[in-house]
Structure formats: C-alpha cells, structure tokens
C-alpha cells in the first residue's frame, strides 16, 4: 500500500517537475548572466570614473607643486603639502621621505590606482583607492538591479507553476482515467474527462479521447462478435440444420395435432437461432458486394407486397413511391435485406400505435439514388440515436440488436451512405444513398 502511494506520488509530480524545474533553472541562469553582465559593466564604468578622478587630482597636485616650487622654499612647500586634505593622496620626496599620508595606504583594502613623478620637485605623488568603499558603492548602485532580478524570478516561477499545473492537471486526470479503464476493461461509456469543455488543445485531446472511448465500445463489440461469429457460425449451423430436418421428419410421422404444433414451434425457434447466426456471420465476414444496376421500383414493389400480404404487416398502411426509371448500382439481395431490416424495425416501433404507417420513397438526387423509409412509430431519443448502430444495442426484449448494424455494414459494403433521423413520438426516417447506374452518371 505504501509502495503504491509512493508510485502515485511519483506520477503526481512528474509532469510538474519536467516543466517547472527546467523553466526555473533556465530562469536562474539567465538572471545570473544578466546580473554578471550588469555588474561587470558598472564596475568598469565606476573604475574609469575613479581613474579619471585620480588623473585629474594628480594633474592638479603636480601643477600646484610646479607653481609653488618656484615661489616657496623646499621646507615651506613640504609643510604646505603635508596639510593636503585629500583622503586618497600619498606624497613622498625624492629620498623617500613622506610628505603627506592620508592613511589610506596602510589600509588592507587600499589599492594603488595611479602614481606620478611628473613635477619640478621630483616628488612621488600617488593616488590610492579604498576597495571596500568602491564595492560598497557599486553594490548600492546595483541594488535595484538585484531587486528587479528577484522580482522577475518570482514572476517566472509563479508563471511556470501556473502553466505546469494547468497542463499537467488535465493530463494527469486523463492518464489516471486511462489507467482505470485499462484495469476495468470494457464499459468505456461510463468514463468521461473533466477537461472536455476547455477550448484549447487539451480540451480537444479530451474530446477526441471521449469520442474514441465511445467508438471503442462499438469497436470491441464488433471485434469480439467477428471472432466469435466467424469461428462458431459453421459449427452451430451444421448441427442445427440436422436438428431442424430431424424435427421436420418427425413432424411428418407424429399423429397428434399437438405434437405437430410442437414440431412447428421448435422449427420456428430453430429458424430464429439460424437467423441470428446468419446475421452475426453477415456482420463478421468481410466481403465485397457484387453490384449491378437494377430498377429500384420493382424491388420496392416486391418488398411492400410481401409485407402487405404477411401477418407481420397486418394493419399497417405501407406504401411506396418510386420513379419508373430510377436505377441503383448495388447488390440487389443485400438491398432487399437492408429494406427488410429497416421495415421490421419500423413495425416494432409502431406496435403500440393505432394507425401504423410506413412510407418508402425512392428518388434521384445528383448522382445518387436515394431511398427513404419513414414510419410514424414511437421514435428515438438522442441517446438511442447515437447508439442505434451499435451491435447488440436494443430496447426490444425479443430483439438481439443486430438489424441496423447489419444495415450499416451492407450499406457501406455497397459504397452507400446511411442517415437516421428520429424524434421521440415523431417517428423515424432512415435515408439511404447508393450510386445510380453508370448510365445515369454519364
């Protein structure tokens, strides 16, 4: 448990560290470099200023010596200069006797800046600088630079903390959700990401992820169905066909009416299972449809007639409307199956309605042949509508939820397009588009 906590902690900090630490390090380095350049510059400016001062003072003193040497005696001159008030000067005569010493020379931090013997008396005049004072003054001048640098560093750290949290927070949230999904497997629909409403790239990532999760649900179901169906279809179909024909044989031999009815109902159930397996097989096997140009009107006529005459279609007002010469480029049998699946869904949706109505309309639109199936059934909510093509999604207790998945598969196999519009209580319209015959395209 403790170990787990440590791991979570490590994961928790990783992104912040990866953004924050380099940011702060670079910031500090830049500031240090900036400070160093600034100090170096002001040191040189100040030093130049000091040297200037020294040159000026030595010049002044030398001129004074020259001037006074002509008018005063040596002793008088020495006395006069021994009282010089400059704190930086040191004056000695040719023999090395000290004339004036401000005391600066003896200090530890004193530095000889300039010396001159260019005077008539031949004295050595030196200018000393107090380094301690020099640096103190320099630092005083640099004080504002240092304050500005510290302020800049703080702003930078704050900004990088803000940025890194703003980025790492949502990413961490997503990564934890993903880890959870991985542990759980399946049921992707119930997960959602908090950052889905953000308008930036992270929001976009979250939205993409969310959509991916939704389609994952379909995808895993389809993959699973495919594997299962492909490997089991034959294995199940064969014995079931045997059982069916066995029951058929027995039905011909039994004498009681009840027994015959029992056989009939067994055969009906077997047919239902076989239908399901056939549907699964249709969904799972990849194949290319063999397409040809055919008249849509004939096909719709046949289908509508079938429903009008069958007990399933009893009490349903089913009508169709199609252009006489409308051609469609598709696999006719598959289009029949598509139509049957859509109509049987419609019939189920209208079960509780008193007036049951199905309208099928076929018309040409640009290079497309459009088929429209419209019912006045109970309709679907927006949530149902998003899931309606998902395999095994059904609201019907007796249904298995493959009808529209098969429609979608067959439509795309025929390079067509499928659109479903529905509203609760307002019926459902399924619109299919297929290419028209090559002749029409020309």
């Amino acid at each position: 448990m403790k170990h787990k906590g440590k791991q979570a902690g490590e994961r928790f900090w990783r992104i912040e560290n990866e953004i924050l630490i380099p940011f702060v390090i670079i910031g500090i380095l830049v500031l240090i470099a900036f400070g160093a350049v600034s100090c170096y510059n002001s040191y040189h400016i100040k030093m130049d200023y000091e040297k200037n001062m020294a040159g000026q003072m030595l010049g002044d003193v030398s001129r004074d010596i020259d001037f006074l040497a002509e008018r005063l005696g040596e002793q008088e001159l020495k006395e006069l200069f021994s009282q010089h008030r400059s704190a930086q000067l040191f004056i000695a005569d040719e023999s090395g006797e000290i004339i004036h010493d401000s005391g600066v020379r003896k200090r530890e931090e004193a530095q000889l800046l300039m010396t001159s013997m260019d005077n008539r008396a031949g004295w050595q005049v030196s200018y000393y600088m107090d380094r301690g004072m020099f640096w103190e003054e320099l630092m005083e001048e640099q004080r504002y630079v240092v304050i500005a640098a510290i302020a800049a560093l703080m702003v930078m750290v704050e900004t990088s903390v803000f940025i890194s949290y703003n980025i790492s927070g949502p990413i961490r949230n997503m990564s934890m959700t993903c880890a959870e999904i991985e542990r759980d497997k399946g049921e992707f629909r119930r997960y959602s990401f908090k950052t889905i409403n953000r308008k930036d790239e992270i929001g976009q990532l979250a939205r993409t992820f969310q959509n991916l999760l939704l389609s994952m649900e379909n995808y895993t179901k389809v993959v699973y169905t495919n594997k299962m169906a492909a490997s089991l279809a034959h294995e199940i179909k064969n014995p079931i066909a045997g059982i069916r024909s066995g029951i058929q044989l027995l039905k011909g031999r039994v004498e009681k009416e009840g027994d015959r009815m029992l056989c009939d109902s067994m055969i009906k159930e077997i047919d239902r299972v076989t239908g399901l397996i056939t549907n699964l097989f249709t969904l799972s096997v990849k194949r290319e449809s063999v397409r040809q140009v055919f008249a849509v009107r004939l096909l719709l006529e046949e289908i509508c007639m079938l429903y009008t005459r069958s007990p399933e279609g009893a009490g349903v007002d089913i009508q169709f409307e199609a252009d006489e010469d409308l051609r469609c480029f598709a696999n006719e049998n598959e289009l029949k199956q598509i139509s049957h699946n859509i109509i049987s869904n419609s019939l189920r949706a209208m079960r509780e309605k008193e007036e049951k109505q199905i309208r099928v309309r076929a018309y040409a639109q640009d290079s497309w042949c459009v088929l429209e199936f419209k019912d006045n059934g109970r309709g679907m909510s927006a949530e149902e509508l998003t899931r309606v093509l998902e395999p095994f999604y059904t609201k019907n207790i007796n249904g298995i939820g493959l009808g529209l998945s098969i429609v979608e598969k067959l439509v795309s196999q025929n390079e067509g397009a499928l659109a479903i519009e529905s509203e609760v209580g307002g019926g459902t319209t399924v619109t299919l588009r297929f290419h028209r015959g090559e002749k029409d395209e020309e």
Partner: protein
Amino acid sequence: MKNKILVIDDEFLIRYTLAEGLKDRGYETESAGSVEEGLEKMKTFGPEVILLDNLLENSRGMDEIPAFRKLDENVQVIMMTAYGSVSQAVEAIKRGPTTTC
C-alpha cells in the same frame, strides 16, 4: 421400380433424417457414414442417385466422385455442403456430379 437413393454423410443426424425423410416420400434409401461404407453399399444396393456430403471425416466428397462412377457410370451424384461458395460449386460440377446443394 422404386427409385434408389444412397445417402453418404458422416453425421448421423443428417444421414438418418435424409434417408428416413426420403423413405417417407416413397424412395428406397440406404445410408453410409463414410466413403468406404458407401462404396460397399453401392455394390449390393445399386442406387440411381447418391447424396454425397462434401466434408467427410477423412476426405472431400468431391474427390471421391470418380470412385463411384467407376462402379456405375450412370449414377447421379448430388453434392451437399454447408460451406456454400460459388467456386466450390463450379469445381464440383467440373468433376461431374449432377448438382450441388
């Protein structure tokens, strides 16, 4: 004379139902679970039509057609298969059975 049909399928359920169902409809039938048994029965029973499953335990029914034709060149063979594909049907017809279903 009764029409004689020999049913060859390795699955008892199919073999029995087919043979019995055809019997109920007035045909004279015999059944066999393998090609060898089928060839034996052919000699004694002398069928006019053979219902032959394509996927037998040890062999493909399609490959055995010549063996039956050798015993009676007029015998009609109907191939049966659950794996209905066009290419298989074409191949079977080329080898000479009457029909595939």
